[in-house]
């Protein structure tokens, strides 16, 4: 049987997110409690978390979380990294043995910064330099897989139910201002650690519920721009599209949402002239990145979080606010369990991006 990455697997899911606009750092307990409510939306074949603000002491360095199948792949990867980066710190990521999580790979964490002279010679900025290096590891080092590579953030994922994954990674010991979570329900896979969500590139993380029907059109388009979709998952392609649109094309996340969940032409036609021109432009210019089919996604980024539904709202997505805290989830119950009296609770419309950012910070 072919494993994920060699064949495309569709999956249903649960997602949840908590964002503190005042930058207050909270432990992983709340997000675990929230995603655990939606146990039935996963089937034990994948769970994971993304957290921002968890490495304040290393916030200027890229934090790499890497899975290794073997010591050989670890040694090869470390040689690869050492040639290109200053490794400030490296360690195993501490885990708690739990009977619910098995077959764990070697899980390592590195804090690194590009070697200055190599960075200068490459004529790239440090983000591009680092993202190329991680894509290269995923592409060419057998048995090594970079799970996350942003600054002051990290992804924790495994095969298992999300609440068990939380226990395994001891996420109650981390404090962050932004948390997303994912519980996975793949249709026919033995489950693969790297195939779990969140998926990430640099500071961008995506958790996703849905199955996009535009997958291969999107994949073949984004692969033109130096990305390589190794996992054949929707989440991976969505992450790369968002990275391309924001980092390489300079679009805002809001504009990117108007590309991937573009308003219908009939909707664009009734807008005022300036808006009509703007929206038409985004659709025409980036038509290869329109995403069709059901999805609800939470996009984590440095200083913010975006929730977005497909334009027909074919997947559930609920948002809520209480004071400075913003909540998103597949189901209202998963919000109520951690905040039973929100100031406001609503279902964002299809294609309508809800973006929360740290107070005083502009969005991406």
């Amino acid at each position, binding site marked *: 049987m072919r494993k994920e990455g060699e064949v495309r697997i569709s999956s249903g899911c649960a997602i949840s997110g908590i964002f503190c606009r005042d930058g207050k750092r909270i432990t992983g307990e709340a997000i675990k409690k929230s995603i655990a409510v939606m146990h039935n939306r996963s089937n034990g074949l994948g769970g994971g978390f993304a957290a921002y603000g968890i490495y304040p002491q290393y916030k200027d360095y890229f934090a790499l979380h890497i899975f290794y199948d073997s010591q050989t792949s670890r040694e090869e990867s470390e040689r690869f990294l050492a040639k290109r980066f200053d490794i400030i710190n490296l360690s195993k990521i501490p885990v708690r043995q739990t009977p619910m999580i098995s077959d764990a790979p070697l899980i390592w964490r590195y804090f690194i910064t590009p070697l200055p002279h190599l960075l200068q010679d490459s004529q790239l900025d440090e983000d591009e330099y680092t993202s190329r290096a991680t894509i290269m590891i995923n592409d060419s080092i057998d048995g090594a897989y970079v799970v996350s590579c942003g600054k002051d953030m990290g992804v924790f994922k495994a095969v298992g139910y999300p609440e068990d994954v939380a226990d395994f990674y001891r996420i109650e010991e981390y404090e962050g201002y932004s948390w997303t979570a994912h519980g996975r329900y793949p249709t026919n896979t033995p489950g693969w650690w790297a195939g779990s969500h969140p998926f990430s590139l640099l500071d961008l993380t995506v958790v996703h519920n849905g199955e996009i029907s535009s997958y291969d059109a*999107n994949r073949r388009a984004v692969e033109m721009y130096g990305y390589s979709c190794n996992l054949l998952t929707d989440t991976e392609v969505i992450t790369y599209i968002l990275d391309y649109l924001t980092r390489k094309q300079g679009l805002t996340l809001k504009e990117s949402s108007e590309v991937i969940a573009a308003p219908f032409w009939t909707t664009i036609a009734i807008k005022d002239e300036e808006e009509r021109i703007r929206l038409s432009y985004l659709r025409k210019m980036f*038509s290869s990145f329109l995403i*069709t089919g059901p999805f609800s996604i939470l996009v984590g980024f440095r200083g913010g979080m975006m929730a977005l539904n497909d334009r027909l709202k074919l997947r559930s997505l609920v948002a809520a606010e209480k004071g400075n805290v913003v909540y998103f989830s597949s189901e209202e119950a998963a919000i109520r369990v951690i905040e039973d009296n929100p100031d406001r609770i609503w279902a964002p419309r299809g294609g309508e991006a809800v973006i929360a950012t740290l107070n005083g910070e502009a969005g991406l």
Partner: protein
Amino acid sequence: MRYRIRKDDSCISCLRCVRECSFGAITAESGKALAFHHDKCTDCQRCVSFCPAGAIYITEDENRFRKNAVFSDDEIKEILLQAETGGVLLSSMGASGKNVPIYFDKMLLNASQVTNPSIDPLREPMETAVFLGRRPEKAERDISGRIIDNLPPHLELRTPVMFSAMSYGAISLNVHKALAAAAEKLGTYWNTGEGGLHESLYPYKKNTIVQVASGRFGVHETYLNTAAAIEIKIGQGAKPGIGGHLTGRKIIGDVSKTRMVPEGLDAISPAPHHDIYSIEDLAQLVMSIKEVTGHRKPVIVKVAAVHNIAPIASGIARSGADIISIDGYRGGTGAAPKRIRDNVGIPIELAIASVDQRLREERIRDRVSVIASGGIRNSSDAVKAIALGADAVSIGTAALCALGCHICASCHTGRCAWGLATQDPELTKRLDTEKGAERLVNLVNAWTREIKEIMGGMGINSIEALRGNRMALCGIDLNAKELEILGIRYAGE
């Protein structure tokens, strides 16, 4: 003799068939008794369609040469004909290579089940609008941070189906009128072909693509500016590498005026453009046309699908052209040498797949648009062409069929009984342009409905999400190499 004409007892001797037959295959002896001249019959089905009694039958002639595993009947007949005349065999319409697979028939489409929902086009919006043209590499903003619309001019199609180039001369003015009126109504485009644009059709300029071919017939500044886009025709699928030859017999009256060729003189399109001997020359012609039209119109370059079509397309994409139109092996023609038609070029399915893949590998697929043509018979062919990587398709033969053509492949005789591929005023008046336009509109609307239905089944609600979406396709009865070129998996894999 290919066909045999028969009638049964229900014939009422109304002589309608005599009046309808433009090939002289049915005549009336002394104005009364029907006489059948089987050797002249092209099986155009005109008499059958118009016989009020349903009394006429056209069948394959049952007199056969002795069966031979190598030399078929047709083969022998062609030898006999050439031995007699010393001439190049002429033919029309698309290739008849029996052993060249129709790959559209060997690909099946996907649909949603359980894990994602199919979408009902009757309940939800289903978008088929396509924009064809060049895209810049990067979005730009003004000083205040607003996005600037830096897109060059685009063609806007309400449906991804347009009409292929067919020249005035090869087909009648009435056909041009029907195509133009239908294109306007459908929100798509028709294409003049290389014979110029009749002045009476100038009002349709918003839906007209004018062609500049090697003969430059009817090309002048007004012509170029009376169009939504200009197409430089390098080649066509039915006769790659070959020019054209419209006989002086067809260069009469308005055809002569529109083509800017003296009456009765043969109009010969050279095989190459004599100002394009290489790719850099093409870039210059593209630029010249853009200058003449004030950079307000996209320029299309049309080529036939030949062996190295992928690098050719890549060269065109870099020549400044906005749109590449690729015409496959089965593309139709008003007249072509039969050996060329049946033996030169490659099927559009393989061409589109390899061009799309190559342009992606070179990271320029988003820069240009691609039109596929050459044997698109129905809406599912169109969907498959788009899933392989085309932005839109164009149809010629199918459009002619909507106007009455039964593909008897006798266009080159100039005696088209349906009044399409002829300039004989007695025949051209057989096509009612309004009725014809309505039938074309019906056809394309029907296809559009079917395209929406197919897209909805796959859970796709906008046509751009189908473009290049190879996972929408799977192969059947194909070998590993064919699957590799098409970029699809085998059914069940």
